[in-house]
């Protein structure tokens, strides 16, 4: 079966499971609903694994190294007609984009999810909303897989929002707890802030490019990594020469050359804003510095959810997004990302040292590790960031599930102060948790060592390069800060382990009742194995990631080669420097990420045969088509500055290599007997103050409470005052006026109109009464009246006649 089909099936299986559980979940009840959900996600994992095997065998068939000869599988289809004004072909597109990164992410997400499902079967078994939990989990996995397979940034955004929704549902799963529902709302709102940035970036991209499929974005903006101040990137449009599209041009035309700025283009400033905007989405999802406040609160959710959010889905989404948009980030945007990452990793590691809730410690360690990943993205270590994402997913899932096992054993007590000595009671958990601690501390032979050292080494190279081109000493911070924090990481993770498992029991009752549960520690063991082996070269994560970059380049070269022969010429392919460190002055390199773990390839020359083989493959793929005019600029594989930077990075990276010894050693020393030493140290005033400051999470919540909540409340109070004293008064005044006016009109109605009508009626009535009185119906009375009248008349006549005659 084709890879894409398998992956689409893998994506849809959790959706099917979601639909089944939505309609039938309650009827299935516990534990059947959970088993069904687990079955589907396991199926999804099997599909992902099959896809990986097919993917590898495809590459084997083409006679090349894993992934290197292949190219991404891309299928897009028109989805919503939106008109030509908005989109280049009149449609919003959706589709799939499958490359090695997709495969790796799929395998990681489905594997971790499966283990979390299994763990949840045990952990959630007594919850009364057990089926609903698995319903949400399924939707969560579907969203994440949809995000990973998405072929356009728009699609990424859609699933991005779905992931956000699911995190809201799951963090607030125990919504009876006020703190849980508050945390869910906080997570949702803080993520909206980041999503606004995403939307702005997406809007800029869509407005300028008219198409946000990943490949088109790479094709036309793939050069963004080497754009300098005063330059523009020409975009395809009607009337733009095809040869110019996607190329870097000076913003102001040089003498004797055509003016590129008259065509549709993006300036470097706009590109930077777009990149930072998109990154802000990742800041929200991956909980980076200004928007990190939601992640520790998200601990209110059930522990398996924390594991899923922190390892496989939510926070991974942010790093994955930055990985996907990496080629279109300008150097300035990357620097911004690196600084944010650096701030986050420092802040979070410091706070983690003082936390006493086991899950809070882990939450801040996640923040710190995400900071490492973002830093890696910022300094251009694309492989390092995603490598760390994968290894971190395994050991962080292990840590969270381990903490879940501890919490389960301890009857939902999360305070480190209540633990102690638990290793005797829950040995499997203690052992696996310990492996995860070693991994995150960067102990050699553990996965965390390789990924973290790749990042720190690349940071060293980056700083060295920056210093070499005279960028100032500040850039060295981007190396030294993560190096020092590596020590802190080892320390606080050791502290967490020591306080939980070592020493004397601090809560006798809790200690006596603690016990291991098989369904809980089976996933732990699997994850522990993965936490060890995920970093090795033979396990294939780094090589898979590296081949992503080659695949993308192959894609462009082949498209171009084919286009040169018969088909109408497509726009000139931008030289795809994509997933590289693109720090000036050198525009392209391969080596910083190649020797992933020092030992594997000690010399950059080992990679030398690559370009020739590369070119040959390209020729082969193109059917020996002659290279079209304006061939791709050859990538300088042996840029001396790059090689020097790499070597210097190698020289410096050992500084973080001692972290695990010193950090773990210190941790063991300080916490060998519970809080005794720590409490003694806290007697010293400055340490106590710092501890309180860190324990209170550097007062970020209070700060945001004052700045955002306070200001919002103040504004709403002001608005309310305006409402009460201005608008209400005006409204009431006008109401009174209207009432007066209507009173007047009412009186007019009552006394004049009605008076006239009633008056006429009563006049007629009284006239009728008056006239009726003589109509007695008595004939004799009539006759009498007649006679009287006649008599009177006669008498009058006589008087008149007499007076006249007389």
């Amino acid at each position, binding site marked *: 079966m084709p890879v894409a089909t398998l992956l689409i099936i893998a994506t849809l299986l959790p959706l099917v499971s979601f639909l089944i559980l939505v309609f039938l979940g309650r009827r299935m009840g516990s534990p059947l609903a959970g088993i069904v959900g687990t079955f589907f996600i396991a199926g999804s994992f099997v599909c992902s694994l099959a896809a990986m095997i097919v993917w590898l065998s495809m590459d084997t068939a083409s006679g090349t190294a894993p992934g290197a000869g292949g190219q991404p599988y891309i299928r897009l289809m028109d989805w919503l007609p939106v008109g030509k004004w908005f989109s280049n072909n009149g449609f919003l597109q959706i589709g799939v984009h499958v490359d090695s990164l997709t495969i790796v992410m799929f395998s990681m997400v489905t594997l971790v999810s499966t283990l979390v499902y299994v763990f949840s079967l045990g952990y959630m078994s007594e919850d009364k909303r057990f089926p609903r939990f698995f319903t949400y989990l399924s939707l969560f996995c579907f969203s994440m897989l949809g995000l990973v397979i998405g072929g356009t940034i728009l699609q990424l955004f859609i699933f991005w929002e779905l992931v956000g929704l699911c995190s809201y549902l799951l963090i607030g799963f125990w919504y009876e707890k006020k703190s849980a529902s508050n945390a869910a709302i906080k997570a949702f709102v803080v993520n909206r802030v980041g999503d606004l940035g995403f939307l702005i970036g997406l809007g800029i991209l869509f407005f300028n490019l008219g198409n946000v499929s990943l490949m088109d974005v790479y094709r036309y903006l793939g050069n963004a990594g080497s754009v300098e101040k005063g330059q523009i990137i020409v975009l395809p449009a009607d009337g733009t020469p095809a040869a110019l599209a996607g190329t870097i041009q000076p913003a102001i035309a040089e003498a004797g050359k055509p003016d590129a700025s008259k065509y549709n283009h993006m300036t470097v400033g706009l590109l930077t804003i777009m990149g930072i905007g998109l990154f802000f989405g990742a800041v929200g999802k991956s909980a980076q510095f200004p928007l990190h406040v939601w992640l520790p609160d998200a601990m209110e959710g059930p522990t398996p959810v924390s594991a899923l959010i922190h390892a496989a889905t939510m926070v991974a989404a942010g790093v994955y997004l930055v990985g996907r948009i990496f080629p279109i980030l300008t150097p300035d945007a990357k620097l911004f990302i690196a600084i944010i990452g650096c701030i986050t990793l420092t802040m979070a590691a410091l706070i983690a040292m003082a936390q006493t809730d086991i899950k809070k410690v882990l939450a801040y360690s996640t923040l710190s590790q995400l900071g490492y990943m973002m830093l890696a993205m910022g300094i251009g270590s694309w492989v390092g960031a995603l490598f760390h994402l994968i290894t971190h997913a395994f050991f962080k899932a292990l840590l969270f599930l381990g903490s879940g096992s501890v919490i389960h054993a301890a009857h939902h007590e999360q305070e480190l102060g209540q633990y102690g000595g638990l290793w005797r009671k829950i040995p499997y958990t203690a052992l696996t948790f310990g492996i995860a601690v070693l991994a995150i501390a960067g102990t050699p032979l553990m996965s965390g060592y390789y990924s973290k050292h790749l990042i720190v080494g690349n940071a060293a190279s980056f700083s060295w390069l920056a210093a070499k081109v005279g960028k100032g000493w500040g850039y060295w911070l981007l190396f030294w800060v993560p190096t020092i924090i590596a020590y802190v990481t080892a320390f606080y993770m050791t502290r967490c382990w020591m306080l939980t498992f070592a020493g004397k029991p601090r809560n006798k009752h809790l200690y006596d009742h603690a016990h291991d549960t098989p369904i809980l520690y089976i996933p732990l063991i699997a994850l522990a194995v993965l936490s060890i082996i995920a970093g090795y070269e033979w396990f294939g994560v780094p090589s898979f990631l590296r081949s992503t970059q080659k695949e993308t380049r192959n894609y462009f070269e082949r498209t171009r080669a084919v286009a040169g022969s018969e088909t109408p010429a497509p726009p000139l392919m931008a030289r795809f420097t994509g997933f590289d460190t693109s720090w000036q002055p050198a525009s392209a390199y391969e080596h910083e990420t190649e020797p992933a773990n020092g030992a594997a390839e000690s010399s950059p020359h080992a990679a030398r045969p690559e370009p020739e083989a590369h070119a040959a493959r390209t020729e082969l793929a193109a059917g020996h088509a002659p290279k079209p005019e304006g061939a791709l600029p050859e990538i300088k594989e042996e840029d001396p500055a790059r090689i020097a930077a790499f070597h210097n990075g190698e020289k410096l990276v050992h500084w973080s290599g001692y972290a695990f010894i010193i950090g773990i050693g210190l941790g063991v020393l300080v916490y060998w007997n519970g809080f005794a030493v720590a409490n003694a140290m806290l007697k010293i005033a400055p340490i106590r103050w710092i501890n309180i400051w860190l324990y209170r999470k550097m007062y970020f919540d209070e700060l945001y409470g004052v700045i955002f909540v306070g200001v919002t409340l103040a504004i709403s109070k002001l608005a309310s005052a305006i409402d009460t004293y201005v608008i209400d008064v005006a409204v009431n005044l006008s109401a009174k006026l209207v009432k007066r006016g209507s009173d007047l009109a009412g009186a007019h109605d009552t006394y004049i109109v009605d008076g006239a009508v009633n008056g006429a009626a009563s006049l007629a009535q009284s006239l009728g009464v008056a006239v009726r009185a003589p109509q*007695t*119906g*008595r*004939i*004799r009375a009539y*006759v*009498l009246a007649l*006679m009287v009248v006649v008599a009177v008349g006669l008498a009058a006549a006589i008087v008149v006649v007499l007076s006249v005659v007389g």
Partner: protein
Amino acid sequence: MFVGIIDNPIGLNHFLVLGALMFACGLLSMMVKRNAIGILMGVELVLNAANVNLVAFNRYLWAGDRAGGKPLMDGQVFAIFVIVLAAAEAAVALAIFLNYYNNFSSIDVERGQTLKG
């Protein structure tokens, strides 16, 4: 005044007095009678009092007057008309009384004070 009537031979004045008496009797009969027939009789008396006057005036004031060789008979003709009218009136009145009687089982006019049925 009465002396003049008694003393003088029969003349116009006697007839006028007779007419006036008849008229008075008729009027009185109409005023005091509750019986519908009595009222009708009163009406006949009034009409005939007028007839007496008409004929008397014609006899005494226009006696012997000629118009184109023929005696003037206007008073008599009027009287004939009145008699015819009285007959027609009596017929209508009696028909009404018959209906009246059907409705009220009586011809007492005091009972017919309402317009309904």
